[in-house]
């Protein structure tokens, strides 16, 4: 049932966000919220999935899908991790460009998550292959939403590779049982004519099947000669969508391909050395070629794209091994690959945005200006290669050793580290002398924040005179009035926009009134009075403000008209025109609220929500640089945890897939 809930949430969120986001305005905001909530729901539902449930009599509980979709630990881990990383990517996209950046990313992510869940949960390989092919179609949502002139060509390539790889897997699954039967006949169990025919067909058929499966995986990940698709994609789509398009959408098809090999082909133990050698050559060519391309490319996005391709080359080793022992390391590596490349793609997106360039030579000195981003990059590199004892490194070793033994295993392991020079190049550039682009970029400010203004109201009892913090008076009557008005504005029932306008007017009025009422002359904002003193404690204005301040603090809330009236009364001398205007605005506002008949509670909640939203927007604008770096750091930490083996990755990857309905039953 939980799986059904997960699929329903994902599909609904995808449809709603795909419908609403392109419309802009209020519809986009609402559907974005719905989409993000759906994404959070899918992530939560994934972690709540239960595996291995049995009835009282010990039979497996089949659930509403009647055992066609089965929950496994691997599924729970992959979907949960994918959802978590997608949530961070969504936040990243909003910080980078607001709601328009979610237009393709959010619905595509939800659609891909839903399709990928079906593919990886399927107990029937044909269904899994069809679902994996359908998952790839989600990429079209991002590609066709892009504004570049080559979007149609890129979409054509994506459609082509998605459906063609799915079709290849489906045909492979139809051919293999037949070829297996022919192989059995070829071993001499049949008539002479049949044996002769079978022996000429069985071997080549199975060889073609294994090559086709490897080609399908290679095409999906963009390995040579299918790398043009990835190269064009990196130029076209927003960089924060690259992890989804070139990594996560390929994971379900790869998992199904591994299942095809493990379930159908590996158990036959046929001598397919020629085909294995071809796949091995393709893997080495990918590892070496893509690593070289990544190192020599001066375009950041292209370099990242080729790094993804290079590391994906290790997946071919899992196919070439033709050994059930490669099942676990292969699945572990595909998850670690997707997680680490998500962090890498996010780092590239933030670096490009911050320094306003994709050119690597112009990024010289980037590490000096961005400590958080630097830490994220270092952690990502560590997550990519892994440390001794980590699941990622062990998967590399097992995949390399599983194909042909020594010394080829050592050479393949070494080839897997050919991307290390590219990461070192990023670091060397980062530590160099900063270019003008890097120099003028906003630095990360890791400083202690000042306390929020609300808490300063408690400190306003000090009789020593006004205290100036941040160029603004925070104690004394002017500070009292200022903070009170600000508190009133933020807690006001009048809505954010109106509260701000009224606050500005009220502050100006109050300061002017207090300055004119000061016995020692005008006191300018942020400065003590000319004679060094402040209005006496017995001053009626001060007492009035302080009294209302205490009342507000005690109740914690204020009625709309009462609060604003209190402010205007306390701040208004008879001859201050601004305060009169403010009172009129408050009166009109009260009348409009009364006419609308809005219940006070609902209006209060809505206004507080709006005020919270305004505060959040302010924080996002002010701390955008740090938040972006923090998001990348979060992804890097997630990748590192995955590489280390969090969520029991090694065991989950090694558990057998729930293939119980497909294949022959001999």
């Amino acid at each position, binding site marked *: 049932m939980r799986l059904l809930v997960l699929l329903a949430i994902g599909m609904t969120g995808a449809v709603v966000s795909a419908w609403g986001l392109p419309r802009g305005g209020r519809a986009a905001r609402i559907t974005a919220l719905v989409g993000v909530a759906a994404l959070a729901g899918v992530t939560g539902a994934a972690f709540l999935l239960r595996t291995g449930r049995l009835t009282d009599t010990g039979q497996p509980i089949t659930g509403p899908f009647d055992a066609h979709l089965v929950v496994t630990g691997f599924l729970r881990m992959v979907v949960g991790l994918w959802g978590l990383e997608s949530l961070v990517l969504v936040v990243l996209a909003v910080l980078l460009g607001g709601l328009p950046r979610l237009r393709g990313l959010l619905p595509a992510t939800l659609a891909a998550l839903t399709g990928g869940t079906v593919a990886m949960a399927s107990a*029937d390989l*044909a269904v899994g292959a069809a679902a994996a092919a359908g998952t790839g*179609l989600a990429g*079209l949502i991002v590609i066709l939403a892009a504004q570049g002139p080559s979007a149609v*060509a890129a979409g054509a390539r994506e459609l082509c590779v998605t459906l*063609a790889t799915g*079709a290849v897997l489906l045909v492979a699954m139809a051919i293999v049982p037949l070829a297996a*039967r022919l192989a059995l006949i070829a071993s001499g169990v049949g008539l002479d004519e049949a044996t002769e*025919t079978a022996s000429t067909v069985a071997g080549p058929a199975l060889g073609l099947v294994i090559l086709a499966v490897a080609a399908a995986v290679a095409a999906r990940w963009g390995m040579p000669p299918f790398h043009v698709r990835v190269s064009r994609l990196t130029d076209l789509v927003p960089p924060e969508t690259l992890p989804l398009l070139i990594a996560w959408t390929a994971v379900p098809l790869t998992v199904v391909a591994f299942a095809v090999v493990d379930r159908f082909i590996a158990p036959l133990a046929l001598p397919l050395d020629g085909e294995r050698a071809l796949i091995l050559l393709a893997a080495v060519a990918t590892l070496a070629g893509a690593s070289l391309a990544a190192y020599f490319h001066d375009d950041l996005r292209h370099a990242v794209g080729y790094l993804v391709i290079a590391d994906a080359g290790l997946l071919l080793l899992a196919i070439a091994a033709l050994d059930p022992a490669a099942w676990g390391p292969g699945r572990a590596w595909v998850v670690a690959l997707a997680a680490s490349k998500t962090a890498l793609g996010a780092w590239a997106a933030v670096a490009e945005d911050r320094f306003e360039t994709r050119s690597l030579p112009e990024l010289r000195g980037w590490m000096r200006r961005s400590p958080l981003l630097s830490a994220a990059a270092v952690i990502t590199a560590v997550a990519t290669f892994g440390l001794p004892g980590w699941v990622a490194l062990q998967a590399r070793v097992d995949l390399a050793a599983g194909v042909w033994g020594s010394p080829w295993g050592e050479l393949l392991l070494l080839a897997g580290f050919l991307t290390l020079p590219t990461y070192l190049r990023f670091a060397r550039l980062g530590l160099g002398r900063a270019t003008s682009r890097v120099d003028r970029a906003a630095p990360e400010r890791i400083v202690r924040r000042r306390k929020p203004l609300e808490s300063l109201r408690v400190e306003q009892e000090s009789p020593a005179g006004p205290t100036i913090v941040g160029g603004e008076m925070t104690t004394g009557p002017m500070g009292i009035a200022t903070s009170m008005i600000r508190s009133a504005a933020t807690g006001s029932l009048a809505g954010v926009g109106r509260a701000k306008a009224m606050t500005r007017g009220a502050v100006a009025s109050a300061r002017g009134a207090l300055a004119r009422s000061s016995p020692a002359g005008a006191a300018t904002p942020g400065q003590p009075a000319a004679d060094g003193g402040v209005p006496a404690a017995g001053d009626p204005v001060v007492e009035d403000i302080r009294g209302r301040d205490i009342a507000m603090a005690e109740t914690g809330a204020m009625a709309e008209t009462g609060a604003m009236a209190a402010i205007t009364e306390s701040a208004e001398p008879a001859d201050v025109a601004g305060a009169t205007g403010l009172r009129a605005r408050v009166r009109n506002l009260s009348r409009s609220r009364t006419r609308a008949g809005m219940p006070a509670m609902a209006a209060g909640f809505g206004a507080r929500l709006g005020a919270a939203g305004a505060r959040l927007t302010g924080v996002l604008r002010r701390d955008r640089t740090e938040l972006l770096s923090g998001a990348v750091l979060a992804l890097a930490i997630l990748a590192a945890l995955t590489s280390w083996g969090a969520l029991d990755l090694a065991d989950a990857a090694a558990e057998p897939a729930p293939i119980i309905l497909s294949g022959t039953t001999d």
Partner: protein
Amino acid sequence: MTPVLILVAGLLVMGGIAAVAAATPRLAVLGLLLALTGAAYVVEPVPGPLALGVRLAGTTLGTYLVWIALRRAPGGLPASSMGWTGSAVIAVAAFTAGFLAAGTLGAALAGGSPEGPGTGGVASALIAGSLVPRAALGASLALAALAVPQVVLARDTLRLGVGLMLVLAATGLASNALYGLPDPVEDLALALLTAGAGAGTAALVAASIRRGGELVIRDSLRPDAPIRHRAADEAHRTVVS
């Protein structure tokens, strides 16, 4: 029933020929509909009404989405690389090759030892000598032969999408011939994939029309030239006319 199913196999091949050789978008989509609809039937034993209904629904939805996307399409397609005659010849040749190969395959499978393990239901109709799986394999090869050039050498979005959907139909036919009657859940999955492929094709076609008012795929490196533009043939036709 067998002669009817063989006739259906022939009709779906004709639909495939129309889908790749048609000069107008609507005729191409009609040919696609015929090919996809017929592909669900050419299997022995014939699937139940539920499975057939599901496949029909997926096919109809997929082709209808493409039909809708062609509302503002230009009236004509770029010239077909094979033309009607070439497509027909290729389809007939592939059908014949598939039909004969299926016969040899069936004979080889049937020659297994009677004391040995059974086929586990794999290709039982083929082993029994039925003509339906032979026709299915022939139709599958014919559709594949027609569709692969449209995919590999794609010049316009409609033919690319049509080619990919014909590839899916060929996949289903091959599975019918070599494996036998699919599971109803597999039918559902294939129907959903067909509908999804239609949706993807429709989106691509609509994007192509919206951006450039045409269906031609233009490579970003050469924005003014269609992919694999066969200038020589165009010039030859111009001189002759």
